[in-house]
């Protein structure tokens, strides 16, 4: 794709991310459709979904930055403020609520000294309650950078925060966290999962954010 407007933006990005952005641009019949994947990529490039990130996505897609912002602001997973290294999302929807999720949230807020919706002073943690995580059979559920742990009781929630603080893993792996801090699962996970998250952007390799266990 030899569009100079696109090249001017992408050549500022890391080579890997450039390549992935070009793959995204090739995957859709219409350019506007690339806004959401590119917002994830730009969020990684800039640390979060900053003003600059949205301007760049606008330049690539031919939209104004306001049009991009109107999309970004609709979706809760584009972080328009900086967040912690580990975003801890506690599901408090009905099934998790019935299984004690409010106590899990309170324990995690207390352990990280970070109120719901905020980021810790050392930028290690952001804590938030979220609507249904799709882990209702393994309630209560907690996700770290969207890697899910099921059956997390308050004490295990505290231990999870302590572990993150002590070990500060570059890649968080669902299997590892489930073994250490999880319990009841929605279903038998069965298959080992080699990849995990390296940032608050969901760890989907096409969007340049998955890390390997190795």
């Amino acid at each position, binding site marked *: 794709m030899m569009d100079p407007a696109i090249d001017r933006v992408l050549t500022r990005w890391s080579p890997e991310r450039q390549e992935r952005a070009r793959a995204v641009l090739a*995957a*859709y*019949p*219409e350019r*506007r*459709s*690339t*806004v*959401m*994947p590119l*917002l*994830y990529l730009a969020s990684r490039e800039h640390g979060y979904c900053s003003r600059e990130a949205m301007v760049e996505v606008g330049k690539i*897609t031919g939209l104004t930055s306001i049009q991009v912002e*109107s*999309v970004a602001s*609709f*979706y*809760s*997973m*584009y972080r328009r403020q900086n967040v912690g290294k580990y975003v801890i*999302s506690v599901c*408090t*929807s*009905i*099934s998790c*609520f*019935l*299984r004690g999720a409010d106590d899990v949230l309170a324990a995690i807020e207390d352990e990280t000294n970070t109120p719901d919706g905020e980021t810790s002073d050392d930028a290690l943690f952001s804590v938030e309650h*979220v*609507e*249904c*995580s*799709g*882990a*209702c*059979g*393994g*309630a209560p559920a907690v*996700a770290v950078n*969207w*890697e*899910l742990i099921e059956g997390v009781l308050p004490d295990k929630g505290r231990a999870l925060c302590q572990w993150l603080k002590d070990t500060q893993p570059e890649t968080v792996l*669902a299997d590892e966290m489930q073994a250490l801090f999880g319990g*009841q699962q*929605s*279903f*038998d*996970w*069965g*298959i*080992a*999962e080699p*990849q995990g*998250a390296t940032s608050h952007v*969901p*760890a*989907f*390799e096409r*969007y340049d954010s*998955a890390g390997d266990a190795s």
Partner: protein
Amino acid sequence: MSQPHILTRHMVANRTDSNTLASYEQSGGYSALRKGLNSMTPEQIRAEVKASNIRGRGGAGFPTGVKWGFLAPAEPRYLVVNGDESEPGTFKDRQLLERDPHQLVEGIIISAFALNCAKAFIYIRGEYPKPARRVQRAIDEARAAGYLGDNILGSGFSLDITLHLGAGAYICGEETALLNSLEGRRGEPRLKPPFPAVEGLYAKPTIVNNVETLSNVPWIVNNGGAAYAAIGPERSAGTRMFSLSGHVNNPGNYEIVMGLTWREFIYDLGGGVPDGRELKCWIPGGASAPWFTPDLLDTLVTIDDVGQNGSMLGSGAVVVMDETTNVVHAAHRLVRFFAHESCGQCTPCREGTTWLERVLWRIGHGMGRPEDIDLLLDVCDNISPGLRWPPAMTTICPLGPSATAPVNSIMTHFRPEVEAMIAANELVQGGVSIG
């Protein structure tokens, strides 16, 4: 109680590697694709799916074969897979995506061939990165094996699949909101008509089907539509994935033949309520569904029976609440979800869900007022006039009217409890109603 496995057959038999192509092929995977592409016409496949009587598994329960029949002839045309599962209580598609992604991919390829689509999209909610990784690996493996790409299995049919990750908006599970999202727009539902089958993605003819629906297609092609239709009650054909959660001993996903009773489902399969506590009520089909009480335990789990009893099977999410449940808090939690997920286009939904959420919150926190009961019912009536079932619509999509279901349920079944919570407000007891 023994239940047949169609959707979960392969994942149960191959616990640790059911996601790989090798394992899937060893279990007979992609044989339906060979059969379909090499020995059937698109018309024949569509006829088998129609004959199967399968109804969409995303929530609305519309017959899939009929939906396919609406697809307009213009080209290009698209197949879009709805993997945005986000209805509170629902986690069935997550299991199908994580544990058997090739079954879905095979279903997509066969369906795209039957519908003459050269491009398909899978929309997976952003909170599901692990399922997305599994499906992407399956797509890559299928492409390397010649099941995807140009001239698949020498049939002349070509298909490309793109996986699109959402970004945290429940409303994108509504099919027209999903299409807007896929086009790079805010996930706001569109007015219908035109329906997606006529003007969908990029205003081109588009079929949107749920993950579970399409995961059934390989079995239907291998065994025939009639064999599928023969399973279960006539208008609730086939097996179906149910997500069971809340106060039960054995939460999880259950692939069952519809037509058993709720008692069999909750007590025999689900193991009943923990610690010998009493069952208080349950949600039979996701957050949008009116609640059931124990007098309905011996009614049947079918789409039609549940509808006749004033609720719906919806997304297949069954949430059980025991006697310790505070119904005001539970209803608040459900309504808060809708208030958070309202896209904001329609005033009755945007304003109404927020009002319901705040009034329920204050009742639940000792600040209820005697007039709050009438206020809640009045707001519900403004969102969905008459509070009837199925709900009347004042809005573009059903999200707002869905929020009235939990409120109406607690007023119908547990009004004395709500009144008691309000009466416990000390200011009300003192004869003063604040505000």
